[in-house]
């Protein structure tokens, strides 16, 4: 059974709050770090276009055509995922949870267990969904990346990145997260603008961000259309390094990064580009792009916090808790995104 309960037989009082685990808030969904395309069951087409125009001198005569209209369609089918655990509340009978069970041997349902413990299934699934959205990688993608011949230049993946990818635990079939898609998509190495990476510390993080910033195409930086501003997606662990870099012990105050607000309203930026901290695999990569270039494709965004509890069979007391959602990560305008550590 799924309940792992180290209980103490209850004799007296129990402190009211049950200390819950601390989870990462799913800010990708909660704060809208990316674009959400919902109402997708399967096979939805995401299109990109760009037009190359070429000026020619006017002659009055019929000119040859010059320039290209580029169209790109990609079919996206979200992967359907399910979480399921079964449990028997009988194992709660000796502990604190028996206080909220109704009298009678038939009754082993605990309101406290339902409201304080089972209620945490949703947030846990949401956290896991965010981790998968950014960091999932399939065994197939991992194998394909391992087969590449690495290089230091633009258009090649570095050997250190290959090693890091090889160290990841491959996940469910068909589910590549954002960073896997940036690295390898459509059967080829990603077209990202490459910034070679190193081990990021509080001492070098400002210099490494300068490299990322310098590589961002000016038109991406200059784009102020709401929802399409340039942002940098960085590992969560780098937030501490950034703050340490801003407050180096014994050094004159160096405001390399702008930290505004605190708590839930905190906003950190580098040269005016906001940094979103997300679960990046291995904490080795960062990606700068327009905010609307990454999409979370799903049937219903709220599915990640919904779960269902019920009996597995009427002639027993074993229950199940299930969550189901669909998800596909998609990266557009990949050739204008800057990947640090690629």
């Amino acid at each position, binding site marked *: 059974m799924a309940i792992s309960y180290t209980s103490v037989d209850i004799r007296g009082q129990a402190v009211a709050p049950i200390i819950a685990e601390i989870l990462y808030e799913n800010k990708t969904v909660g704060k809208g770090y990316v674009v959400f395309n919902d109402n997708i069951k399967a096979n939805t087409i995401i299109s990109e276009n760009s037009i190359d125009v070429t000026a020619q001198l006017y002659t009055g005569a019929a000119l040859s055509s010059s320039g290209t209209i580029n169209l790109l369609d990609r079919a996206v089918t979200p992967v359907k995922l399910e979480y399921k655990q079964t449990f028997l509340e009988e194992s709660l009978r000796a502990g604190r949870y028996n206080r909220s069970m109704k009298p009678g041997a038939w009754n082993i349902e605990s309101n406290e267990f339902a409201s304080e413990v089972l209620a945490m299934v949703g947030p846990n699934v949401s956290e896991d969904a965010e981790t998968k959205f950014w960091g999932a990688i399939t065994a197939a993608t991992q194998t394909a990346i*391992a087969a590449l011949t690495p290089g*230091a230049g633009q*258009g090649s993946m570095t*050997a250190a990145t290959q090693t890091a990818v*090889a160290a990841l635990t491959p996940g469910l079939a068909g589910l590549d997260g954002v960073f896997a898609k940036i690295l390898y998509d459509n059967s080829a190495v990603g077209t990202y603008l490459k910034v070679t990476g190193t081990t990021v510390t509080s001492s070098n993080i400002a210099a490494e961000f300068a490299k990322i910033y310098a590589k961002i195409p000016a038109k991406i930086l200059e784009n102020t259309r709401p929802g399409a501003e340039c942002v940098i997606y960085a590992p969560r662990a780098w937030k501490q390094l950034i703050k340490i870099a801003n407050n180096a012990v014994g050094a004159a105050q160096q405001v390399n990064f702008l930290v505004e607000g605190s708590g839930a309203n905190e906003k950190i930026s580098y040269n005016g580009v906001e940094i979103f901290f997300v679960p990046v695999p291995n904490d080795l990569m960062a990606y700068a792009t327009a905010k609307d270039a990454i999409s979370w494709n799903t049937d219903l965004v709220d599915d990640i916090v919904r779960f269902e509890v019920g009996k597995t069979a009427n002639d027993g007391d074993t229950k199940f808790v299930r969550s189901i959602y669909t998800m596909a990560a998609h990266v557009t305008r990949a050739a204008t995104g800057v990947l640090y550590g690629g």
Partner: protein
Amino acid sequence: MAKETKVAFANPFTPGINYKMFLDAIPENVSVKDYCKGNLSDEQIEWLENDLSHYTNNLKTK
């Protein structure tokens, strides 16, 4: 007198040159560091040596 042939430096940071091409371009008994000296910065050479160590290790495990 033997004719001296100058071979162009295979810059590993140039798009299209992968590590196999780069290592193949290095003459025998010449280290990566010596080959790159004068063509790349010390920082680039240090980074390259580190990344190439991943490449050679990965090749051994294939």
